[in-house]
């Protein structure tokens, strides 16, 4: 699969933040203990006029600003999210129109909990490989919702990242990708319900760890690599603890994962989580560096990617759009009342 890969990328993180301590105090819990336990200090919150469609558009426009490709050459758009603004009416149609890629293209919305975005990257890669499209756009974005008082309220946040996949001027070659999938009911949201449900402790060992470790191990076996062959590793980050722990179990060091570990500062962006981490790595990556990524989506499955940064990364106009680090810093804190208004908590089903 040589020479197919990421041609450009962009990410988007809303400006509002709420501190874990502020949420904790509303529910009579100790914020410092919760922050330490989850490895999350604060999380991003979308403004009232933002949703998965607007975040996807901003991320995709940033990707286009960094390169010179004509949006009319984009032949497919896949938007991965579990918070598509419509249940029926694809987010991809809105994104396609807003970036000027319509009408001659394939579009579909993907849903696979937190790994729908990486599933889109795989589909675009395959379509480019099959010469069915010149470029594909894959986006992972979410404005994830958590029931008030639920443990997920400390992590469920908003953000996303977009990747243009193609053959020309590839800045990061996708050497190989594979997945690991089983039926594991660790986390779900029933149709027409606003908030998700989860299996509590069940979400760790048989779900997150089993799938990521299996997928990552299979991938390294397939491409014949070891953890020390990589400059960066990114794992799905539902909290600040799981990715650090899974990296250690697999034999990766904290130095390898820290550039792609964004969850402590913005929370879990669900479909955006591992991809915002990848965008953060691409913000600083140099030619020849190798990147390992494994996403995780409840339900459950993992997508693994073995990626090599090419010389073309130096030609990409990375300064034409904000970096993940810049968006992490550009923030405005809100209180719980404002948070309740912005995230529509006042509406109860």
């Amino acid at each position: 699969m040589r020479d197919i890969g990421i041609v450009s990328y962009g990410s988007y993180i809303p400006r509002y933040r709420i501190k874990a301590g502020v949420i904790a105090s509303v529910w009579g819990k100790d914020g410092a203990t919760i922050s330490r336990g989850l490895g999350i200090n604060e999380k991003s919150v979308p403004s009232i006029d933002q949703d998965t469609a607007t975040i996807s558009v901003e991320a995709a426009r940033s990707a286009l600003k960094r390169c010179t490709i004509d949006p009319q050459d984009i032949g497919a758009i896949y938007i991965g999210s579990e918070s598509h603004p419509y249940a029926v009416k694809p987010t991809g149609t809105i994104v396609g129109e807003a970036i000027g890629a319509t009408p001659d293209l394939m579009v579909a919305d993907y849903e696979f909990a937190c790994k729908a975005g990486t599933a889109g990257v795989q589909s675009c890669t395959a379509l480019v490989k099959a010469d069915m499209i010149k470029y594909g756009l894959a986006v992972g974005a979410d404005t994830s919702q958590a029931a008030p008082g639920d443990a997920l309220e400390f992590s469920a946040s908003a953000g996303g990242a977009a990747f243009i996949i193609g053959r020309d001027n590839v800045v990061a070659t996708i050497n190989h990708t594979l997945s690991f999938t089983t039926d594991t009911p660790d986390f779900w949201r029933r149709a027409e319900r606003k908030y998700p449900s989860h299996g509590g402790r069940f979400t760790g060992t048989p779900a997150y760890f089993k799938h990521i470790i299996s997928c990552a191990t299979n991938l390294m076996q397939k491409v014949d690599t070891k953890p020390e062959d990589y400059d960066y590793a990114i794992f799905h980050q539902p909290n600040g603890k799981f990715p650090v722990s899974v990296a250690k179990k697999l034999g990766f060091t904290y130095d390898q994962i820290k550039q792609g570990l964004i969850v402590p500062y913005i929370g879990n962006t669900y479909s955006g989580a591992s991809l915002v981490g990848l965008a953060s790595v691409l913000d600083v990556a140099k030619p020849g560096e190798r990147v390992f990524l494994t996403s995780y989506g409840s339900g459950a499955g993992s997508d693994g990617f073995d990626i090599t940064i090419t010389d073309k990364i130096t030609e990409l106009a990375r300064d034409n759009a904000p970096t993940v680090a810049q968006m992490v810093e550009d923030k405005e804190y809100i209180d719980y009342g404002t948070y309740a208004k912005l995230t529509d908590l006042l509406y109860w089903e």
Partner: protein
Amino acid sequence: MAGGVARFWREIPQRYNIIGNKCGSCERVFFPPREACPHCRRKSLGKMEDIKLSGKGEIITYTIIHVGPEAFKEQVPYPVAIIKLEEGPQITAQIVDCNIDEVKIGMKVENTFRRIQEDGYTGAIYYGYKFKPVKE
């Protein structure tokens, strides 16, 4: 936005991508696009060409809305500004991503893609441009 879906749909190019048009005779740029150039009139017919505006400009004047329309009641107080775009036309839009006391005449702004309004919890969602300060 009663009966708004069809009207909104027709305006998608303007609302999403700030597509204006340019008079082929005098080069003046218009937003929203016009059927004919008011300066060249008949001379401009058939010579009006669609162009995508940069979405960058400068605040000419602004006001702070304290009592907004029903659909915006959760956003008050918020600034609405008249912005002079780089290509010349003026556009009225909400300013977001900054505190209301930071809004100033002459401030450089750029467009951002946002939800403008929705027809309640069951109706269509209307997207379009708002403007935010340009980061140095």
